């Protein structure tokens, strides 16, 4: 299992029956592939739809139906479309149960930076700031380190996406829960030891006596 699949499978375990979920572009999108069987979850795309599903097959593209990355998608029976104000009203108003986003850095305060690298990348924040500020639960999906550089740091050096503390961080090495007390190491990836995690992490982690191995969806 590669790192992305591992992260996606672990995050899929976090989704609850009946919840409304927004998956960011890229790795987070994979989460929908690993839902526990029978789990009824609705996916929102912030450009205006509840009921996202992957395009069922090539040739079925609707030029009026895309995800937030501009890629053609499908829609489930019972989908609902709406304008951008309504869509972000759902997000900001506490109606979105979970958002899963990628990350560039997460720090000891649990704050996330994921939208810009000044001087190098100015894509704009799109919906990320609203999602991280407004979703009931924010789950960050990212590799634990990037080319040997730790991404879980004492203090974000990159501009923050929100001052809101995220709720869970799932990497290819660990599951970490930002709390009032700091970053709590909750689980380790299969075959990964606590020492390896600590070595790849700049931030101080709160390490319990027993760190369970990640539970993964089928």
């Amino acid at each position, binding site marked *: 299992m590669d790192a992305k699949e591992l992260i996606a499978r672990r995050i899929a375990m976090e989704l609850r029956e009946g919840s409304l979920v927004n998956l960011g572009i890229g790795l987070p999108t994979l989460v929908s592939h690993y839902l526990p069987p029978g789990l009824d979850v609705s996916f929102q*795309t*912030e*450009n*205006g*739809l509840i009921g996202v599903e992957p395009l069922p097959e090539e040739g079925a593209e*609707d*030029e*009026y*139906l*895309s995800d*937030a*990355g*501009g890629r053609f998608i499908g*829609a489930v029976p019972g989908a609902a*479309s*709406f*304008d*951008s*104000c309504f*869509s*972000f*009203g759902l*997000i*900001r108003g506490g109606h979105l149960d979970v958002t899963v986003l990628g990350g560039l850095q997460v720090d000891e305060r649990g704050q996330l930076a994921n939208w810009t690298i000044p001087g190098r*990348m*100015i*894509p*704009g*924040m*799109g*919906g*990320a*700031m*609203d999602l991280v*500020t*407004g979703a009931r639960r924010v789950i960050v999906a990212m590799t634990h380190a990037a080319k040997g550089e730790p991404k879980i740091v004492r203090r974000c050096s990159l*501009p*923050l*996406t*929100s*001052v809101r503390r995220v709720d869970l961080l799932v990497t290819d090495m660990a599951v970490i829960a930002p709390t009032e007390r700091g970053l709590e190491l909750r689980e380790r990836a299969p075959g990964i030891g606590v020492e390896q995690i600590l070595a790849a992490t700049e931030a101080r982690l709160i390490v319990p006596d027993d760190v369970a191995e990640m539970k993964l969806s089928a």
Partner: protein
Amino acid sequence: MHKMIALEDAVALIPDGASLLIGGFMGIGSPHRLLGELARQGRRNLSVIANDTARPGFGIGKLIDARAIANLTASHIGTNPTTQQQIIAGDLTVELCPQGTLAERIRAAGSGLGGVLTPTGLGTTVAQGKRTIEIDGRTWLLDLPIAADFALIAAHRADYRCNLDYAMTARNFNPIMAMAGRTVIAEAAEIVPVGVIPPDEVITPGTLVDHLLRRDAANGR
């Protein structure tokens, strides 16, 4: 009320330097005929408010390619490298605004509200230079309304009275912008008789639309 207008004449209404609200999200639901003609007529120095600039050769990317835009307010420009190049070269200034805030700012202008009190962006670089308002011990960022000289919007269907509907995610910013442009120019994929769009399915009432593009021989998008 006769509101139908030829593409060329509609675009001729828009002077150099005008401010434009332009619907669409990555080109999905953008007014492609209007954008193509704006580029063709060589409009310059536009101020554009839109979610993004799509990609080179597509959607608002056509205005970027034509170097028609001097100022841009958007939530995302990462998909168009030409936009980024023009910013780096100093040919284009950009204000980046969180997407939900952008939508609400346009809605505030169109709905006669004085601003938007949002939690989004508080404590980040987006808050720099902006006022915060404390209400019952909680702090909110005050973002200001955005209106424009023109709103250029793309509908799915328009009826003869310019009532509009939209399809799926092509709705996005279009109906919000139709409230906030001093002149609203719409194009539609289909034009249908009055009554085909039932009252409950009209998203933008025709009274908001000033001009509707005529069908023409080369009606491609």
